[in-house]
Structure formats: structure tokens, C-alpha cells
């Protein structure tokens, strides 16, 4: 079970049990739905942009512990960031879970490191990045559905 503890660290189980910023906000001006064709999971992300700053972000949907935790941690990190910073964060996270070389994450991204376990489970990288793809699509502003494939 030790390998499992690597994948399902306590932070992940906690975010899965009590996802932060979960629900449909009263106010949002950008939204996108992400779909994982592998499992049929759907995560919708709602953003409230003021100027180029993310004032609020919430998400809803069904997903595995990995995708829910990743979405939950993402919302905490994105609030208050500019669009460019949010997308840059997505890029670092993406590199972190897919890169051959283990990219280092900044200290402020400590919680994301809990998702490092998915590197050993290539099938689960899609779960970890689902909400991030939705967030990026929402920022793109076309509001179209995105898929992780």
C-alpha cells in the first residue's frame, strides 16, 4: 500500500472529501466544461475575471479523487492571479506531472506536489489535468467544451 500512499497523499484525500470552491457561483463571466473521454468525467470551471485578474473561481462536476483534488487545489492557487500567471501556472503544473525531468515547483505551489504520484500512472495524468484544461479554455474565452484528448 506504500505506493498508493504516494499517489493518494493525505492532502489529496482531504481535498477529495472537502473540495474547496466547489459549486456554481452567482457571478461568473467565463466558463468552460472539460471532458475526460476515458471515464466520462466532466468538470466545469467558472471564472470571474475583473480586468485581467481572476477575482473568483469555482468548479463543479464528477471525478476521481485525483481530478477533484487537482481542481480544488487549482482554484485556491488561481484566485487573485492574472490571466498570464494562471496560464503560466498550468504550464508548470503540466511539466511537473508529465516532464521527463522532474521540474521543480515554486514553494507557493507546495500542495500541487502532492500530485507528483501521477507521474507513475500515465493513464491518470488526464485526471490530474482535466480542470486545468477547463480553466485555460475558460480564460481563452470561447467557452467551448474541451477534452483531455
Amino acid at each position, binding site marked *: 500500500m506504500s*505506493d498508493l500512499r504516494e499517489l493518494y497523499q493525505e492532502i489529496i484525500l482531504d481535498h477529495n472529501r472537502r473540495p474547496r470552491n466547489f459549486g456554481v457561483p452567482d457571478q461568473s463571466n467565463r466558463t468552460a466544461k472539460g471532458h475526460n473521454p476515458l*471515464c*466520462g*468525467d*466532466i468538470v466545469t470551471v467558472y471564472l470571474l475575471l475583473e480586468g485581467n485578474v481572476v477575482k473568483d473561481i469555482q468548479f463543479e462536476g464528477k471525478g*476521481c*479523487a485525483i481530478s477533484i483534488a487537482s481542481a480544488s487545489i487549482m482554484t485556491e492557487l488561481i484566485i487573485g492571479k492574472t490571466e498570464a500567471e494562471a496560464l503560466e501556472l498550468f504550464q508548470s503544473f503540466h511539466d511537473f506531472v508529465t516532464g521527463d525531468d522532474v521540474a521543480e515547483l515554486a514553494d507557493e505551489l507546495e500542495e500541487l506536489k502532492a500530485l507528483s504520484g501521477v507521474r507513475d500512472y500515465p493513464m491518470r495524468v488526464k485526471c490530474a489535468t482535466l480542470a486545468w484544461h477547463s480553466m485555460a479554455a475558460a480564460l481563452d474565452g470561447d467557452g467551448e467544451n474541451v477534452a483531455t484528448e
Partner: protein
Amino acid sequence: MTEIKRGGRAVKLKSVADGFDLDQIREDFPVLRQKPHGRKLVFLDSAASAQKPRAVIDAIRYCYEAEYANVHRGVYWLSERATEAFDGARETVRSFINAAKTSEIVFVSGATEAINLVASSYGGTFLEAGDEVVISHMEHHSNVVPWQFLRDRNGVLLKVAPINDDGELILDQFEAMLGPRTKLVAITHVANSLGTVLPVQDICEMARSRGIRVLIDGCQAVPHTSVDVQALDCDFYVFSGHKLYGPSGIGVLYAREELLKLMPPYQGGGEMIASVTFDKTDYAAPPYKFEAGTPHISGAIGLGAAVDYVRSIGLEHIAAHESDVLRYGMQRLAQIEGLRIIGAARQKAGVISFVLDDVHPHDVGTILDQEGVAVRTGHHCAQPVMDRFGVASTVRASIGMYNGRDDIDALARSLNKVKEFFG
């Protein structure tokens, strides 16, 4: 033991009279010796693709090592040997499903291609705008999407027969859907996501008595039950080799010869022609008319070997053993608190689909994997069924001839670990 001749090769097979010996069968499947994460492999995903017995692996190796050349073309010794083995596989398949003639057995890449072939060639030619195709609510996507293509191209209407909360076809409602414009019923024999066995004999009678053609998707049926296409009186019966312990990339379309003669070719190329000039091409007779290009020679031979192997064990023995394991599994899993079985049809084969409390099927699958237990998680290419039961995905444990009650025990133990972990 009996010995049969397959191409240039003598094959030793068990005889059905020897009975069902689970330990011996497990010995026959080399992959079962693998140790995922250091654990005994408990393979419960045969509905996705079954493992291969030594007999199939040997037949494919022999094909490439001893009798490989293109078929139906060469006049030399090696090509004749390959042709004999390839044609022999067609005869083996014919006899397996009791088709009247080998010309009714078309080799395709799998059931998906078979259905696309029928939708395109038969549907595209004989169905008109306003004609209806009836499918069920528990079809695999491969028996949904080709008919949607036809709908979008020809204006054919697609009607879906409903199922009840146990995952059974509601037969009287199905029958009520068969109207004057219904031209084809395309329906599964055993539902891949739920394991429901459909009353295909009744379905065929209902359809045939109204002059409606019937296509049966037999992918999940042929590994578990014997099929007689003449007794069924169906028009088309399709299945894939890889779920029947044979190789992937090969499958079978059975169709009545009279239909194959009427249907236009699906693809053009070599093998399917009688003569070609730049003005006009005459097509070969069935089945070759539908087999353009060099076929999957080793695949067909491997499929033939798989059929020989299954018949040597005996489908009656296999069905009796698997239904014991299935019954035991349904009982054992029902005892796990928070586990909900999806699909409780009275007639079921090979599949237990379930969800566990709030734990997502992918998380269940990953934790089971650590215990050496391989199951399928997801929507099983049957999203309308998932929608019907209000879930996005399930965990599916499916049973092959090599599974025993011990595999169910391992699954149940591992599921309890999942609960501890997420509890």
C-alpha cells in the same frame, strides 16, 4: 487428447469428455504467470479483451515460422500451405456458429468493422429515408454510431428500445416498436456493460415474422454460449476474435449468402475482384467480395485455433463453470456495504458492473491494480447505459474461463481495502 490437422500442422487438443479442469486451463494461458506489483495476477477484464491460450500463440508462431505466404495468389508450395490453413480457419468458424456455408463467413478486422460494413453496404443500399432501425438502450457504441452515420446520410430513423431497472430489454415495448417502416433490428446478444443476456431467439422471431432483418452483435456471447445462426434465423451475426481468446484485428461477419450476393462491396481492391479493366470490374463471389486486400492471415489462423481450443474445453463446461463464478461473485459483492451492482438481469453472462460508495471507479481500479486485480473502469463504450443508471462510469469485473471463485475472493478482499483507504 485428440489430434487434429490444421494446415500442415497436427494439433493436440483436450477432449470435452475430460471435463473442466480449472488448474489445467490456467496452465494453458502463459500470461497468468505474470506478477503485477509482485502480486498474483487476477485478470477480471476478459470482456474488454480475453487472454490467449498457448494453442493460439503456437498457431500464430507456426504460421509465420512454417507456412506463411500470401493466400489465394501463389502457385507455390508455401502459398498453398498458407491458403489451406487460412481457408481451414474459415471452415472452423463456420462450423462454430453452424453457418450453412463458408461463403457466409466474411473475415473483418472486428465486430466494429462488421457493423460498419453492414450499415454502409446493406443499410446504404436497401434502407431509405423514413425507414427505421431499432437498437436497444444497452448497445456498445459500435452498434450505435454506424447507424447514426446511416441516419445522417440516408435519413433513416434510429429508434431505441428501452430497458428496465435490472438492465433487461422490455420485450413487449421492443415488439411494439416494430412497425411497417422498421427494416432492421441491430441488437446485442449479451450487453458488454451489464452482462444481460438478451432473448435473441424471441427477438429474431418477432422481427422475421414481420419481414424485418436482424443483426446480432455477438461479441460478448460467443465466449460464453454456443451460437447456431441457422437456429436463430438471424440475417447478420458479428463478433470479434480477441474476446474469444483469439488475436485482435480479426473478427467475423456472418451474413446469409443471398444478402451478401445482393450487397455491394464495402471496399475496393485486390482479392475482391473477378476481373478488372479500366471500364468495368466484376466482383468476386462472397465472401471474397467483402475482403479487399491481403487479409489478416495469421489473425484468421489464430482465431481458428482459439475456436478449436474453446470447443475442446466445451462451451457447455465453460458456461457452467462461469455461471457458478458469476453467481458466487454477485452474492459475494452484494455483501460489501456501499457496493451497488448495476445490472441485475435474471439472464446474465460474464459481467458484474458496480459502483462503490463515493469512491470513483478510477480510484477503485488503481487500488485494485496494486493488489494485482485487473478490472475495467469507465463507461465501457456504452455511455447511454451509464446515463440510464445515473452514473458516469462503473467498475466492471468480467469473467473468462480461467477465472475461479478464488479470483472473486481476491476482488472482494481488495474492495474492502479500497473502503479502508477512502473510508
